[in-house]
């Protein structure tokens, strides 16, 4: 029986593919992925890698994917930070703090995301004054309807040494953290953590400065004609999308965090308190590890939602993968089947990758044995 069903399904698929191919041929539509190496011929207003109109559609895919990853990655970071703070604030014993968090959550999760994106873009950012009347912060940072322009460090030769110093500092952070915990467990006493880290930071960057001097120049934006020159320009489409995605998803994450903390039995806090554990230690070692177990699966869904929702970029023409591939490229090349397929595969792989990472983390948190 199962063999028959399988055979029928396979047969239907073979027929479908054959049918599509013959139809495409009859209508003289190209098939295959040859277009990826053809010249794209259109510009993109935010590119993380070098890109010109003369580059191929293949490079367009990479540029779009990087833009999607940038806005999703930063969105996940800010949504998590804000969401956890709001979730904890919602549980605060302080009436005002808890109510402010509640109002925020109810507003942001009950207005459609598309509207929020349009609000930030058309309602706020496009309504900023023109570059000539730009709002400025200390004549270094400017906000106008062309985007936000920030001063930026221009790195010269030798900047690499500073990168090495930064890596060294990160390694030092983890090493010190391990050393502190180990010292706590073998001698019983807490050792200093921040002061040695500060000394290490000074030493590393001091060494970098000795090796390479100061190879940075501060690039402050300046008004030239009708727009700004220099500095780092963040396009308004990006800011609007990032704001909307982070603020919207944070409201959902806040509710997840609240539910997670509430799910930990009150007896757990009481047992920790009765043993004399200070509240902060109890929160870190007893409550949070158990709350995370409940928080992580729905949190994963929110991460996936945010990534997929970033495709609403198309509404304000932020050049994400959907906008540049399933939008501009599709209208120029016309191979809907291949292009939609590639776009879907990209989202599918991103989502599967995220789920896989989060599931692995969740497995590490799981309880052993029966727990009621």
């Amino acid at each position, binding site marked *: 029986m199962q063999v028959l069903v399988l055979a029928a399904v396979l047969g239907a698929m073979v027929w479908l593919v054959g049918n599509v191919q013959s139809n495409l041929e009859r209508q003289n539509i190209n098939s295959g992925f040859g277009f990826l190496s053809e010249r794209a011929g259109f510009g993109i207003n935010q590119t993380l890698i070098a890109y010109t109109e003369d580059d191929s559609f293949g490079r367009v895919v990479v540029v779009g994917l990087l833009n999607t990853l940038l806005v999703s990655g930063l969105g996940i970071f800010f949504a998590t930070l804000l969401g956890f703070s709001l979730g904890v604030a919602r549980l605060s014993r302080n009436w005002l703090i808890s109510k402010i968090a509640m109002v925020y959550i109810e507003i942001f999760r009950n207005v459609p995301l598309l509207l929020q994106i349009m609000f930030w873009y058309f309602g706020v950012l496009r309504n900023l004054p023109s570059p000539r009347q730009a709002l400025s912060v200390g004549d270094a940072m400017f906000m106008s309807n062309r985007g936000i322009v920030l001063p930026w460090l221009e790195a010269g030769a030798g900047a690499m040494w500073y990168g090495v110093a930064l890596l060294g500092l990160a390694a030092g952070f983890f090493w010190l953290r391990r050393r502190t915990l180990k010292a*706590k*467990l*073998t*001698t*019983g*006493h807490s050792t200093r953590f921040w002061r040695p880290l500060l000394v290490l930071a000074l030493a590393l960057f001091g060494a970098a400065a000795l090796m390479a001097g100061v190879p940075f120049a501060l690039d402050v934006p300046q008004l030239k004609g009708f727009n700004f020159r220099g500095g780092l320009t963040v396009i308004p489409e990006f800011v609007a999308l990032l704001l909307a995605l982070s603020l919207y998803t944070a409201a959902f994450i806040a509710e997840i965090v609240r539910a997670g903390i509430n799910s930990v*039995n009150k*007896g*757990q806090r*009481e*047992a*920790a*308190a*009765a*043993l*004399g*554990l*200070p509240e902060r*230690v109890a929160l870190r*070692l*007893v409550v949070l*590890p*158990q709350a995370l*177990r409940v928080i992580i699966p729905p949190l994963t869904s929110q991460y996936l939602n945010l990534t997929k929702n970033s495709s609403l970029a198309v509404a304000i023409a932020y050049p994400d993968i959907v906008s540049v591939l399933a939008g501009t490229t599709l209208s120029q090349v016309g191979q809907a089947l291949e292009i939609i397929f590639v776009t879907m595969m990209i989202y599918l792989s991103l989502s599967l990758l995220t789920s896989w990472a989060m599931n692995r983390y969740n497995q590490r*948190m799981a*309880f*052993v*044995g*029966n*727990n009621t």
Partner: protein
Amino acid sequence: MTDPVIRISDMNKWFGTFHVLRDINLQVAAGEKIVICGPSGSGKSTLIRCLNRLEQHQEGIIEVEGVSLDGSSKNLESIRSNVGMVFQQFNLFPHMSVLENCTLAPIWVKQKTKQEAEALARQFLERVRIPDQADKYPGQLSGGQQQRVAIARALCMNPDIMLFDEPTSALDPEMIKEVLDVMVELAEDGMTMLCVTHEMGFARQVADRVIFMDEGEIVEENEPEAFFSNPQNERTKMFLSQVLSH
């Protein structure tokens, strides 16, 4: 009689408008074993939960080993690390192994090294007769074993006083004895104990005093022999006839 280790005088407590504890006066000497009984809702659990401030009283004085429970967090810290508590629902930490459950507080409160804390934990696990379960997780143990781990966990802080809040009420009948046996041994070693329980056999065997509570008041207190054979108060008589009749 030496100085009492617990001194409660004219203590009152409300939950909202509900008067849970009324004019409680109680003194407990070092090494004394007190069993508190009474119908449900009579305030007996609330009373012992006030002793380590899991509940806050509103009126009167509670002193534990001469330190007053007055809301100062320094006093509270010192009292909590000297008073162990065992709960009806065990409240073991499910994400930690048995050994980690027992070493958590000694490491983070008493600043012991991991090695010292583990040696101590194994010694107490031996004493509650489950030394071979040290590396298991609470979810892998029976209720009786979990409750004995909870007792060992409390003992690892070397408390002077132990509070038991209906320690056998959540257990299957065949596991009650293994927990009571550990408690009897503890009593024989001279631990000061306050125990809320319905196990009247345990009360007869180890208690120095039995306290009967009803509607937030201490109605009657006496030595177990006299308490069971010759109760004075009508409410005590009624309660005992219900508990002992089957």
